[in-house]
């Protein structure tokens, strides 16, 4: 079970969180023209990366904040966590 540092609550066990997918995907702005390909990429197409990966988690049973977590998908090592408002560097 992972041990995740919530930027608001501190170190918490994985069972307080829910996983939310790739944190680098940006939703196209509402009201803009989006090509079929771009839309497909946004809705469906994800890379299953091996290695460092920025992903979203929600601290569901805690502060309910969505956070960004940089995790190694092969080793589960967590390098950094960010608030939703902070940009992935």
């Amino acid at each position, binding site marked *: *079970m992972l*041990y995740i540092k919530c930027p608001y609550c501190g170190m918490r066990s994985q069972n307080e969180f829910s996983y*939310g997918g790739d944190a680098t995907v940006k*939703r196209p702005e*509402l009201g803009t023209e989006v090509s079929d390909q771009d839309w497909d990429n*946004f809705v*469906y197409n994800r890379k299953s990366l091996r290695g460092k990966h920025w992903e979203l988690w929600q601290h569901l049973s805690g502060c309910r904040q969505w956070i960004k977590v940089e995790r190694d998908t092969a*080793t*589960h090592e967590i390098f950094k966590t960010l608030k939703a408002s902070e940009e992935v560097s």
Partner: protein
Amino acid sequence: MSQSFRLGNVGLINRDKKLSFKFNGVTYNGYEGDTLASALLANGVHLVGRSFKYHRPRGFFGAGVDEPYAIVQLYRNGETEPNIKATEQELFEGLEATSVNCWPNVNFDIGAINNFLKIFLPAGFYYKTFMWPKSFWYKVYEPFIRKAAGLGVASPKHDKERYEHKYEYCDLLIAGSGPSGLASAYAAAKNGARVILAEDKARHGGTLLTSDVNIGNQSGKEWADRIISELKEMPNVVVKNRSQVFGYYDHNMLVMSERISDHLPKTKKFHPKQRLWYIRAKEVLISSGSIERPIVFGNNDTPGVMLSSAAKEYLKVYGVLVGRNPLIFTNNDSGYETAIEFKKNQIDPIILDTRKDPQSEIVDEAKNLGINIKFSYVVVAAQGYKKVKSADIAKISDDKEQLGAIENIKCDCICVSGFWTPTIHLASQSGNKTKFNEDIDAFVPGTSKQNETTLGAANGSYALDETLKSSFETGYELSKKITNNDNKITLPNVVEKKSTTHDKFWCVPLPDGKNYKRFLDFQNDVAVSDVEIALKEGYRSIEHVKRYTTLGMATDQGKTSNLNGLQLVSNIENKVVPNVGHTTFRPPYTPVSIGAIVGREVGKHSKPTRKSPMHSWHEKNNAVFVDAGVWLRPRYYKQGNENLFEGSKREAKNVRTNVGVCDVTTLGKIDIKGPDAAELLNRVYTNAWLKLPVGKARYGVMLREDGIVMDDGTTTRISENHYHMTTTTAQAANVLSHLEYYLQLVWPELNVNVVSSTEQWAGAAIAGPKSRDLLQKLFPNSDVSNEGLPFMGYTEGDLFGVKARIFRISFSGELAYEVNVESDNGNFMWEKIMEVGEEFKIQPYGTEALSTLRIEMGHVAGSELDGRTIPYDNSLEGLLSKKKDFIGKRSLTREAFTSEDRQKVVGVVPLDKKTSIPEGSHLVKDSNAPLPNPKLGYISASCWSVEHDNPFSLAILKNGKNMIGEKLFVMSPLKNKVIPVEIVSSHYVDPKGERVRS
């Protein structure tokens, strides 16, 4: 039977407490502090089971967790449990156990014929033989194999025992309370660290209990006892025995199973049987020791052949002789310790040492005691079927390849020592890259991936002074890092006998003309010849060899077999062992009961139960409840002998003719506040929200980004910047997360707050033509006329002194209202509604009537909004705004979503107007078409229309728009039904929606 193999005065058992127990129906005696194994051995019982494949007689091989054979079926307090190691099960009064894997009994086992057919049961036999014909597997092969094999039977009864889970955090978790565990725990605890010290056995001390050493002028055992009692007094230390740390998971999370009551005849009241600990440790110290490894020779599985360390433990801890005529077969000094213990108790052992001329203190001591030692000798084969009777021995050449003349000597047990294998399972599970240590011919932990350190024998360090020194040091250093304290304790003086190097000999060659089975893996019956076949057939990777031969599999996980298996592969392949590599060690290290894993989340405790504030009223009024997610909701209120069908029909009819009340507390509610609240709603709902006035409600549909309907519900504008959103019961949590996602990540610029208020409000839906009359009486001071409170209107009122929210919304399709009060007043509201409603013939209605009402009205709900349908499919396309963008809109332009014959919700009526249509049935054009019959759609929900008094269903049907009036067939192969039906509009009652506006 008397305990004829029990010594007079030796051991740590409590001779004042005699216990009686039964094994295979025979009654024996033992003492408190015995294991089932030691008590049986005290009574001279060596035959305890049959081997897995060949059904050869099997005895005891180890004295603890390493035992591969002595697995029994245990009977305790009216329950039975399989897969119990006799070497771990502590004796209690009245214990009963039986052998497994034998039929009809352990002395005469029909399966033993496999032993004589063994030439037909080579490696991969099952793969090769039982593949064809395919149909034979279920009918012939599997039942036969199951009967003949298997390691016990699970109880079919509900387990009444209680199992618990516990979460714990500590600075240091120390797995194993042998010398290194005790020393590191002591050093760390004295330095202020929070320590958990776990020991899998009942007694702490590990090898200190059996070895002849002196620490600080105390015997090893006395020192261990003192350290443990000091640790137990310290507030920063948790000391646990009977607790196995069996799994090392990510981020230093370890799981330990504590056997709290297994050693008692019966679990004490309010106590659990076992407790599973989830421990998050800052640092982990693995002091799990080592397991002696066997030397491979002919018939080395005969009962009476056992590890030399086990023989020593039975003697020193339990005062039990495993034989009176022991033969010790060793390649190192450890075997001598066992021999010396025998000798001290007036038993004359013979030592066969594979070494030519070893020089060490301990060898000298054996010589001085006059023990008969034969150097450069090996056991070629054990003789005897159900028990060792003698041994064929021979001199072995210096190159270890040539055997001299075979001699036969009498003996009643053979104690084997092939040196020691560090227990690296936990380290390996943590991701540690293990490395091969040439000095000890075994793998030891290498580079740590997590915060773990392996100490002592588990790290390949077998000298006590070295172990204690490094363990004290490690305990101190790690605790200093965590606590910043600097209390260092002085190292005690250690006296131990120095030993010399072992011989790398591990397998006795076969003598000419003999074909003895030489077992590598005792639990899975894998012999040298099986691995040879696997390699001959082309298996190379050790992982493949493992699976093909079953070497190192099952509950044993290769504890005694792993390294000898690797040695064999490396010999044949001409590789060195590290290049062969070892198979992956997987948790659990030892078997864990399912009960412990499940914990208390059993039956109705497997999920929380949520009840509305009106629950006790429902109970008192004969409600029959149904699970709605985690909620308990009344399904119908039973009157007399009514069944569900009759009751729900009566309730639904009463709503259509008079007035009914339904508990809708379970609906998800989200409180939305902020200047941008309307903008948020406008973006997540498909319809327009910017112009909704205060005091008005609106129905809305929410999509996922892929265009699929996520949820629906009404949202009401309570005041300028305050909205009250409702969701379906099932989707409440998901919708809140969904809103939070967009607010926090996508549109952080929106100034809105959302919070769940589901449990803050109790809700009652009042529906039926007389609902307005009732409402007027409930709220005499409010204007609830059609003009004062029109359809989709909202007002606040005073319900006999209680503040209430009144929404004019309808799910039943009737004139209807929903009244919300704060949860604490829920019951008051309900009772008032029932009291005042009496004159209008009010009846409460449950979820079944609720469904009936919405189905015949054609209102879609969860069974249509099932995660596969878009708004069009549910005839909700009128709610899709063309002017604005919203979540999921772009996806609705996908080709499949816009095709002409897209599926759509329709109504379905059986032609005979009598036959009920099973939900989930398929709609087809021709009921006699050859299979697979093309499916046109499926029945999503069925009811008995109370308006029309005939069955009515909703269906999602291909090209539904153009199918009204068509005659189709409903097919339900599950219920074996074919029903001719007509497709009608989904709005079966009041298609113009006049009633809700009346």
